[in-house]
Structures are given as structure tokens and as C-alpha cells.
């Protein structure tokens, strides 16, 4: 198989297949969560559950000062690479073009050198996060093979993207194909692992905020 054939395979049928597994899988996960429902709450509310839920969906992006003091490394590194990942995913011009062609919506993108720098920082952040996971007693204790798997597929997407952008693998169609394949692995793995937190975290935050909001506490 030539590099161009490989690229066409990853861009064509494999991409379609990965996208189908991703869309189907994520919706199965979300709907199966929501379909479980909640018991009716008879207690008289003190505050608004819905407003509390919506606020918490946003508020958990801001770490509370006590947590920052207790675990500054987690907070900073975690935020840095999450933001970096999302920026690289959504604000890199080739990705915007891809989204436009797939979903029909587009938005302004960032200059390539900016995305490049952010990607480099994100890769360093991911490496730091792995070292921390291996070294920190609590993280090491909690970690399962799945945690390392999702780190791996995330790292693979970032590093292959970086290598392709800098044309460090030759020929370029091979580099691009590898990156697209890595993204497809990410998409396929996502619904079956805790990578679903990309979506379910907002559901979780809503329920958390709604439970506390009903009692008049902004969580």
C-alpha cells in the first residue's frame, strides 16, 4: 500500500466508520444515562435546581482556591492540556475545514504557529500528567489499565498531529494518514471508555449543581 492509498483509506472509509461508531456510541451512552431518570423529590426546594445545575456546568471550569492550593500541579497541568487539546481540535484550520465539510458549520480559526505552540505545550502537559499519574500515590492507586489506555490514545492524536504538521514523518501523506488514524482510534475508543467524560461530565455537573442548587447552595 502506498502512502497516498493509506491516506485515502484513513480519510475515506475508516473515517466514516469511526465517525459512525463515535456518534452511535456516544448517543447510546448519553441516552442510557438519561433514560435511567431520577426519583421525584418531595422536599420543598430552597433554590432553583435548574439554575444551580446550569451554573455548576460552567463553574467547575474554575477550580476552587482550596483545591488549587492542595494540588496546584493537577489543576494547572490538567487545565493546560485540556484547553490545549480543545484549541487544537477546534481552532486549527484543517480541523475547521473538516468540521465544516462534515457538519456544515464553521468558525474562525487561530494562526497555525499559535496552534503549533499550544500543541507543543499540550504534549508536554500530557507527558507531565502521565509522570504524575505514575508517581502520585493516589493517582497510581486509583489507576486502571483503562486510564493508561485513554492517556495513550489522547497522546497519540496529539503527537501524530505535531509530527505531521512539522513534516517529521515522510512522505507527508503517510504522516497525515497516521494522524487521521490516531484520531479515528480516539473516536472509536471514546464511547467505550471514560473518555465519554467529554460529554457526560456536563450531565454529571448538571445533576450535582441541581442537587445542591435545590438546597440553595451553589456547588
Amino acid at each position: 500500500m502506498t502512502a497516498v492509498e493509506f491516506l485515502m483509506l484513513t480519510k475515506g472509509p475508516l473515517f466514516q466508520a469511526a465517525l459512525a461508531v463515535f456518534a452511535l456510541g456516544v448517543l447510546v451512552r448519553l441516552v442510557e444515562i438519561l433514560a435511567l431518570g431520577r426519583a421525584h423529590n418531595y422536599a420543598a426546594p430552597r433554590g432553583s435546581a435548574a439554575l444551580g445545575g446550569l451554573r455548576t456546568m460552567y463553574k467547575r471550569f474554575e477550580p476552587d482556591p482550596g483545591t488549587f492550593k492542595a494540588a496546584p500541579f493537577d489543576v494547572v497541568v490538567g487545565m493546560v492540556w485540556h484547553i490545549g487539546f480543545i484549541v487544537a481540535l477546534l481552532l486549527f484550520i484543517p480541523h475547521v475545514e473538516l468540521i465544516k465539510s462534515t457538519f456544515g458549520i464553521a468558525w474562525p480559526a487561530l494562526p497555525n504557529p499559535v496552534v503549533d505552540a499550544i500543541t507543543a505545550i499540550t504534549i508536554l502537559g500530557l507527558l507531565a500528567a502521565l509522570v504524575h499519574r505514575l508517581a502520585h500515590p493516589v493517582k497510581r492507586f486509583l489507576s486502571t489499565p483503562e486510564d493508561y489506555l485513554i492517556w495513550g490514545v489522547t497522546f497519540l492524536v496529539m503527537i501524530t498531529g505535531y509530527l505531521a504538521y512539522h513534516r517529521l514523518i515522510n512522505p507527508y501523506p503517510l504522516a497525515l494518514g497516521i494522524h487521521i488514524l490516531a484520531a479515528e482510534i480516539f473516536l472509536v475508543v471514546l464511547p467505550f471508555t471514560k473518555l465519554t467524560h467529554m460529554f457526560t461530565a456536563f450531565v454529571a455537573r448538571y445533576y450535582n449543581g441541581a442537587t445542591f442548587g435545590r438546597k440553595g447552595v451553589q456547588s
Partner: protein
Amino acid sequence: MVTASPHRPDGRPAPARQATLGESLRRNGVSRRGFLKFCAATASMMALPPSMAPAIAAALESARRPSVIWLSFQECTGCTESLTRSFSPTVENLILDTISLDYHHTLQAAAGDAAEHAREAAMHANAGEYLVVVDGSLPGPGANPGYSTIAGISNYDMLMETVADAAAVIAVGSCAAFGGLPKASPNPSGAVAVQDLVKDKPVINVSGCPPLPMVITGVLAQYLTFGKLPELDQYNRPLAFFGQSIHDRCYRRPFYDKGLFAETFDDEGAKKGWCLYRLGCKGPMTYNACATMKWNGGTSWPVEAGAPCLGCSEPDFWDAGGFYDALSVPPGNSGDMLLAAGAAGVAVGAGVGLLARSQAKGAAKQHQTVTAEELEQKL
């Protein structure tokens, strides 16, 4: 500076009666300054640094005229057009004068049997020495040979027969190199590339639709000058011309790096000459020399004219997605498939979720009330 060497660098015995290139030039009244100039231009054409000129001069002094047989199969003559419309005739003409083009459908005067006899004669006279240039793809051994024949001979038979005693094969154009347009989906004629069939001879691919004329003559010049095959990439293309991508040598690259893109063919960005990536430029995945050698005698090239690179020197570029879709855009329509998959996801999720819910409800029905009495039994 010009040191004439009586022997070819590879020590091969030169066929008798043939003059060296140096002799031929001087007989034509070319002075030593003229020869130096010729070498400088040749180095430029071969994409070699100017400092290579003396080496070229030394090699050319003793170079012999090779015999070339040019075979045209399923092609559009665009490659020959490209070659003959070259805009710096002095150099190319000298090269072409130097080679002995013994068989070329389009260019030769002879036709029919006489033409085929010329081919056979050249093959016999120069067995093991001659070059075969092919343009066009050909129906593979399993395909109907009737799709393309010459003088009643199938392309496949003619190629295999001609190549048998050749020194090397140069596949000119993306059709000969990779199958090109005839091989594009659904490939009705069962077209294949030369390298799919010729396995026991060196094959040099000079891809492009058409290739740059300077690249065609440059490859010939290199063979002629140094008597050996150039260094090739993974697609058997000479690295000297195909070693770098359009993107890496594009004068618009700084705009890509800055993130300045033309979004339509007539917007401000297009007028300011910004990067054409979003208009479908395949420059990043295309390896060719257009960005430096340019077309029409160095006048311009597609990107300079405001058109995105179509990637014509890459394998299967016809089937590699829309010409005006960005490189990252997948071919085909993902939207409908996404909707279908999403709908299926909602259905399966709802099914599974409701099942789980009834499971929780079922558990509630099986609930056995915890009482103080049974707790007391534990104490």
C-alpha cells in the same frame, strides 16, 4: 577547467562511430565559454547546485548519444506537448539532439510497418543500452487488450518486448507512472502503471499531469551526463525534482504559517495572494518542482496564478477527494451517515436505558424493608 576525459565514468565501452557530446558541440561551433554556460544551465535544469557545473562539463565531454525508444499508450499526448513546448529550446534541443530518438509515434515521420521496423532496428542495434520512455498507462495482463493497441500489438506485449533488452525505463507522466486518469475509479480498461509490469529493469517515474518539461529533459540529461540512474524516492521518482513538497517550496508558505488564507477565489485574501489551503490546495502532500522551476519558461505556475495545486504528481490524485476541498476534508458525505448513526444511537441508548431503568424499578419491587427487628438480630 574543462578537462576532457577520454573514458566514460562507468568505463562502459562506447558504441563505435558515435561522437561524444563535447565533440558534437565543438563541431557545431560552440565555444568553451558557450560550453560553460551550457553546463551552468544544465546544472540548473537538473536541480543541481551551480558548483556542479565543472563535473557536468567533464562528464558531458565524453558522454555518448543514447538511443531512446518512446512508447505512447493510453495517454493524451499532453506529456509530449509539454516536452516539445518547452520554452528554453537551446538547452533542451541540445539534449534532444544529443539523444537518438529512434521511435516516437507523434514525432517521427515514419508510420505503420516502417515505424515498427525502426523500433525493432533500434532495439537490435542498441541491445542492453537503449532507454525506453513510456507515456500513458496500459491495460494490464488480465484486462481486455483491445482497449489499446498499436499496429495490432497490444500495449502490454509491446512494452514487455521493448523493455526486455532496455537499460532502463522512464515512465513519463502520472499515467505511465501511477495509472493516472485511465486508472481512476472505476478504471474500465483495467489500466495499470509501467512499474506494475516491469519488475526486472530500473523504472524511473517522472510523474505529473503533465510533468514539467525541464524535469523530463533534466532526468534525460542526468542519465546522459552521468550514465547512471538518479537517486529515487519511494515512488521511484528522482529525488532531485521530487524531494520536496510544493508546500515546502511555495512562496505563499509564509501565509500558511501566519494563518492567512484565501476563502474564495475572489476575496481579499485571494487578491493579496494568501495561502490556498482552504480552497483545496494539495501542496502539502504533493512532491514536485513546480514552485521553483515553474511553467512556461519560468513565467508562472498554478499557485502563482491563484489556483490550488491539484496534486497531479501523486498516485491516484484523481480519486483523492475534491480538487477544491481542503486536504483535511474527507471524500464522500459524512453528514447523512452521522445522522443515521446518531439516530441509531438514540434508539439503542433509549432501549438499553429503559431496560436499565426497569431493572432499577424491578429491584425496587423486590425490595425487602429493613426493620429494627432484623437489625436487632445482628447484634
